[in-house]
């Protein structure tokens, strides 16, 4: 390495000047805050909230329709909803359709017994819900639920979990993130020779 005072003085790059580093830091913080505010203000995405009749329901009278209920009117790519007896004989009449914040299918149930519901819906935002449930009509005891909770099976669960280990890891990462940000925006001087 060589030294040239004149060249060094003239070669201060614009991105090394204090004002530009502060401006860059300000932009990063502003973008991060904006994203956070938008995420908090934006209404929650549409999700399947319930089935009617519910999984494991015991009904005294036969329903005329079966429905999937959503937190908001669903914008769907595709959906399927079918109802059958325990022996697999369909009892649906017509096709399923979107009705406000519900997807419904008419059914004709004349006999008492246990009925199975199969459903699948793919929303425009990629959210998917699929599963089965069952309910009984005119039976002495309600059947046990058979479906999973209303969740899509895809994915490995993300990176978050509500347990102490996750909180510890996130806390460590916050400290590291602060350290890294400090390094990036306040570059330390190298150590002076000790010998």
């Amino acid at each position: 390495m060589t030294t040239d005072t004149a060249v060094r003085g003239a070669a201060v790059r614009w991105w090394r000047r204090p004002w530009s580093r502060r401006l860059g830091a300000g932009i990063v913080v502003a973008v991060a805050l904006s994203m956070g505010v938008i995420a908090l203000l934006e209404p929650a995405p549409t999700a399947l909230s319930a089935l009617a009749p519910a999984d494991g329901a015991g009904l005294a009278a036969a329903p005329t329709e079966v429905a999937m209920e959503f937190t908001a009117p669903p914008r769907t790519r595709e959906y399927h909803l079918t109802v059958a007896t325990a022996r697999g004989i369909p009892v649906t009449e017509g096709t399923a359709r979107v009705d406000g914040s519900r997807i419904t299918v008419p059914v004709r149930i004349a006999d008492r017994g246990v009925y199975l519901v199969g459903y699948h819906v793919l929303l425009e935002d990629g959210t998917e819900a699929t599963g089965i449930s069952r309910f009984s009509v005119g039976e002495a005891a309600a059947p046990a639920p058979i479906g999973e909770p209303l969740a899509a099976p895809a994915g490995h669960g993300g990176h978050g979990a509500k347990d102490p280990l996750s909180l510890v890891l996130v806390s460590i990462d916050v400290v590291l993130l602060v350290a890294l940000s400090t390094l990036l925006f306040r570059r330390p001087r190298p150590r002076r020779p000790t010998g």
Partner: protein
Amino acid sequence: MTTIQAPGAGSTGLVNRLNGVRHRFALNLFMVIVVAHWAEHLTQAFQIWALGMPLKESRGVLGYFYPWLVKSEWLHYGYALVMLIGLFLLRRGFVGRAKGWWTVALAIQFWHHIEHLLLFVQAQSGTMFFGQAVPTSIAQLVFPRVELHLFYNTIVFIPMVVAMYLHLRPNQSEFDRADCSCAKEPALSGTSRG
């Protein structure tokens, strides 16, 4: 009067420039990606712990608006791939102790990427491995915890931050051997990196 030659100015090729005259810029860009990814995780943690949102709805910022990014593994796999490429591509610009720590991060990230590749293939093909109902990585067979990859990201992040610290605060020997302009020149030594 001597002439200053910008580090890496005589080098040809993108990789040489990224590890020489452009190492500082490339590292800063890489760190912005890293910080953005962590912002996603911290947002997710905030959604879970502060807002009390259900786990399956706590998908960070991008996953909040585009759930398919998380469910299809594109987000996680894409980040793991970018991390691997960045760690590999920018390694040569490090020297001394910093290079050792950076290499540790690269090695861990390499395995982490393999794990994500397994998850990605399962999510895209719909074929689950190891007899599982959902995409599952090798380590999850032993430690079936959903925060496994948070752990991976943390143990990659630790040596990476140490490497960055040592790279930006080198000793004199490391400073003399470095080709890049990442570390600020000593105040009174009269050396410059242009």
